[in-house]
């Protein structure tokens, strides 16, 4: 545990002393809850359609595959015409693309970013590294199967997959969401203990609460 995360007394500029416990003060520790579809079929169908047509991606490139996401914003591929946009903050994003290999150090940040996203949220594993480790299969510092740590909705295989493959992946994800199968957030909440156990097995300096927000 880093010293700045320890519980301690702090003296404010006005001379008042108060207790600071960063892990409790800065985070909400309430574990995620399962949030089932709350409305009737017609409304949920409309919502699923809207969710599928307005996919906001978290702009967080976790590995080398992020280089394949950039061309999607350019005139050549232009993903915006399919309702796909990039958001710089996890709060507003719905889709998290794990782009390629994921080192354990990045995994920690990926978990925090994922947990800050709002339900429903989706994860795409991009490249073969997220499926079985790919060319990093015997690396000491990368994870092998992304699905053990975050609930993956869709894999796009290849090393690297071309931007066209990503566009095709978005289309498949849209079909999944529209059919009502994009329930990764609830899956994560249901199997929370199992995911946390897996995450803690590889992240050794676990200096954050079990659930971030």
């Amino acid at each position, binding site marked *: 545990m880093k010293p700045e995360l320890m519980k301690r007394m702090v003296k404010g500029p006005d001379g008042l002393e108060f207790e600071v416990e960063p892990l409790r003060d800065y985070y909400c520790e309430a574990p995620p809850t399962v949030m089932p579809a709350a409305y009737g079929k017609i409304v949920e169908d*409309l919502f699923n359609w809207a969710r599928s047509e307005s996919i906001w991606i978290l702009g967080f490139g976790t590995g080398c595959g992020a280089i394949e996401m950039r061309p999607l914003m350019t005139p050549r591929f232009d993903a915006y015409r399919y309702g796909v946009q990039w958001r710089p903050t996890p709060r507003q994003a719905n889709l998290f693309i794990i782009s390629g290999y994921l080192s354990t150090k990045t995994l920690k940040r990926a978990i925090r970013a994922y947990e800050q996203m709002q339900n429903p949220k989706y994860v795409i594993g991009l490249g073969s590294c997220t499926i079985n480790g790919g060319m990093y299969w015997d690396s000491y510092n990368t994870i092998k199967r992304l699905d053990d740590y975050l609930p993956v909705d869709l894999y796009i295989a290849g090393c690297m997959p071309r931007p066209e493959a990503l566009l095709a992946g978005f289309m498949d994800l849209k079909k999944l969401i529209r059919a009502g199968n994009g329930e990764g957030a609830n899956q994560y909440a249901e199997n929370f203990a199992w995911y946390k156990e897996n995450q803690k097995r590889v992240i050794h300096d676990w200096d954050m609460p079990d659930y971030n927000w």
Partner: protein
Amino acid sequence: MDFDWMKIPYAFLTVFIVVNYGFLMTALIQKIGARAGRRYGIPIWQNYIDMIKNYSLRSSITHGVMFYLGPVFRLSGGVGLLLFVPTIYGSYMFSNFSFAGDLILALYFVFFGTLGMALGAGESGHPHAAIGVSRGLSQVSMAELPFAMAVFSVALQYQTLSVTDIVAAQQGGMLHWTLFTNPIAVTAAMLSFLGSMMRPPFDVVIAPQEIPIGPPTEYHSSYLAVMQTNRAIFPVAKIVIYMNLFFGGATGWPELFLKVFLLYLFSAFVGVCFPRFRVEQSVRWFLVWAVPLGILSIMVV
């Protein structure tokens, strides 16, 4: 005091028309910007889908009371701005709640949303939000200065603080517009207009490539949807004021749609042509180019 209750449904109708027009127009402007970058751009109805999506998110978190009130203030700033000035000149239905001194109230409402946003974003506790708000407030304050001067100049010119009277004075042909009778004030106001439309070169506050993404960093799901609704209303409301003060107002919805679109297009046109300013650059730019024009316009009148 006699209050005409029929004005309330008419006000709702005005807001309804403006929301829909704002959604479609901002999408169209984004498409035009995309075409300038040789992209196809978003579908024209994308704003509606985004809003339904944001309302349909199942979870949302809060950081306190002010966090709730931030988007509410922002939206009420936009709606208030719209409803307290005459939208359509000479129309009983769409004059809404305009009254003798509405110009002062309008100036206040232009700033109101920004202040509410500052409080809400401050409560979110995110450092990016705090930095974004301080940048935004300094830039918007600077941009409002020439606009306020231009408004004083126009009020002096027509000897009234009522927007309706100002529009009435401009009727009877294009050459009666303030654009031709007081060009210096209009120039100062149009430079200030660039600064408050949150488009390049003055979009450092909310640009995703800067500190991501400024004040709305922590806002999500229905909070964000409320703010998106305001992003459709506020520019139209602001342009309606500009149109009323400087470009002869509008006597019907088609005229309003056309004038608002052209004015918005002006800021989009500048936006695709010029790169982004940093805050201190934009503050200096307003001080050097816009504020002297504003002072000059008052002195000339």
